[in-house]
């Protein structure tokens, strides 16, 4: 019989990482909340907080089991196996090899499910019914996120023995497909189902509080260390590699975005800096330990430029992806996932890098095209899977409870109408009025 040997160091790092990733969702609430107009900031934040409230219990009840339980058809794990986070055994768990108590891993994974759902909310700003959002969140995590997590990390179709097994094992270190492509596609589909905000493309709809956007970007970067370096599930040199690559990519993507803006519009904006950071973080996520420092910088630069260009697409094609879930998360996620096929680099001289068995170096590092092919196949699969299922779920909600608030309410502001509040004290109750 196996015995569980606790590694307190790895456990310490994973407890900290779990806390860090949990903080990303409020960070996102500020990143998104600062970007909307002052009349809908609370609703924007409530979509993130609501995701925390709903998804955590779902994860602890059946989500973990559905993702990491015994495989059923390559699509999903048995949701009843560890129902209620029961029937767990540290000695035989998924993470026993690194001396990690399985409950810590469950907590860590819960934070991934939460943030993925919250990411989607950026595309529905200012106009989605809050009740429909909550229903969507619960249904989507169940039928889209949990299967995707299983397929990639739980031994399903997108893992080592999955659809690309004859080509190469796909690499997704920390969630490029499960989190970013998944949320990005869902955001696009929801934005289309919802329709455009009144005034989209005509009015500026400027961010009402850019320091909040920067606060959000900072908390996201900080939390992302848990996301990427934590995905090693251990405190070792590979975690160090992920830490360094994460910082390198986020930093240079910010510079690349600013440079793109400067050339195109004449100004390097703070909104661009915040967006560039996130674009770099998104793109490096699947590649975090699979590339060397130069590879991380290359991925960061490419993602910074591509995402800076991609956020303009919505005006061209007329879908109101309000806060650029598509431009940043879908495009960034695809960029990182595919570039692994070029830049994956494990070998002598490259401290800390790691790729799974069956994966190989990228095209630029002598590994041929196989890895690139595998990455592209997985990315496309994720796009189609998430797109079709999100469309079905969104359409059913639209047909039943409806997706959107009335246009009058949208004009008055969803904070006031839906939540009965305004974010800041305004005329009539401000410092200068009433009781002085």
């Amino acid at each position, binding site marked *: 019989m196996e015995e569980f040997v606790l590694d307190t160091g790895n456990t310490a790092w994973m407890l900290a990482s779990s806390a860090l990733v949990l903080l990303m969702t409020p960070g996102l609430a500020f990143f998104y909340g600062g970007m909307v107009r002052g009349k809908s900031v609370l609703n924007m934040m409530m979509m993130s907080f609501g995701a925390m409230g709903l998804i955590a219990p779902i994860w602890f009840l059946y989500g973990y089991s559905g993702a990491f339980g015994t495989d059923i058809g390559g699509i999903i794990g048995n949701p009843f196996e560890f129902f209620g986070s029961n029937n767990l055994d540290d000695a035989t768990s998924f993470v026993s090899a690194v001396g990690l108590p399985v409950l810590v891993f469950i907590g860590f994974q819960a934070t991934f499910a939460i943030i993925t759902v919250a990411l989607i909310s950026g595309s529905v700003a200012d106009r989605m019914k809050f009740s429909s959002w909550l229903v969507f969140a619960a249904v989507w995590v169940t039928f889209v996120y949990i299967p995707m997590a299983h397929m990639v990390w739980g031994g399903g179709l997108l893992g080592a023995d999955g659809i690309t097994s004859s080509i190469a094992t796909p690499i997704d270190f920390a969630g490029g497909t499960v989190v970013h492509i998944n949320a990005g596609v869902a955001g696009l589909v929801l934005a289309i189902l919802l329709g455009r905000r009144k005034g989209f493309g005509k*009015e500026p709809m400027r961010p009402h509080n850019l320091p909040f956007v920067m606060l959000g970007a900072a908390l996201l970067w900080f939390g992302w260390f848990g996301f990427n370096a934590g995905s090693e599930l251990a405190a070792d040199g590979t975690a160090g590699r992920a830490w360094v690559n994460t910082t390198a990519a986020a930093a240079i993507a910010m510079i690349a975005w600013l440079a793109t803006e400067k050339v195109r519009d004449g100004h390097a904006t703070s909104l661009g800096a915040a967006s560039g950071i996130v674009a770099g973080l998104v793109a490096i996520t699947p590649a975090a330990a699979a590339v060397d420092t130069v590879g991380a910088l290359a991925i960061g630069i490419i993602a910074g430029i591509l995402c800076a260009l991609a956020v303009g697409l919505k005006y061209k094609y007329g879908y109101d992806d309000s806060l650029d879930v598509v431009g940043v998360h879908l495009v960034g996620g695809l960029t990182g996932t595919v570039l692994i096929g070029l830049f994956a680099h494990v070998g002598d001289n490259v401290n800390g890098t790691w790729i799974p068995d069956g994966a190989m170096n990228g095209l630029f590092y002598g590994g041929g095209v196989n890895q690139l092919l595998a990455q592209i196949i997985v990315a496309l699969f994720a796009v189609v899977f998430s797109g079709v299922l999100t469309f079905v779920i969104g359409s059913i909600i639209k047909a039943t409870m409806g997706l959107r608030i009335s246009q009058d309410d949208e*004009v008055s502001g969803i904070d*006031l109408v839906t939540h*009965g*509040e305004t974010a800041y004290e*305004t*005329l*009539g*109750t401000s410092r200068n*009025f009433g009781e002085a």
Partner: protein
Amino acid sequence: MKLVTAVIQPHRLDDVKAALEAAGIRGMTVSEASGYGRQRGHTEVYRGAEYTVDLVPKVRVEVLVEDEAAGTVADVVVQAAQTGKIGDGKVWVVPVDDVVRVRTGEHGPGAL
């Protein structure tokens, strides 16, 4: 000369601006205000206590015009700002003795 002041619903400002521009008005001054009137504010509940917010957000638009244009301008604003719901606001006209353009020091109608 006259000063036409309008207190309107905030979301009508864009239409009012467009209508004034169409009517040949080249300048105006805009500011934030709160209105108190027939339109009652919404009720808010904070942690179990209920309050009525009786001041509602409005926007004030001021336009200096020549005497003969005052009536037209007021009408243009009224038309553009009208939604027909309580709280649409007021427009009023006040006589003005003199106007000066700060940039040039010019007085009178030419300063508009």
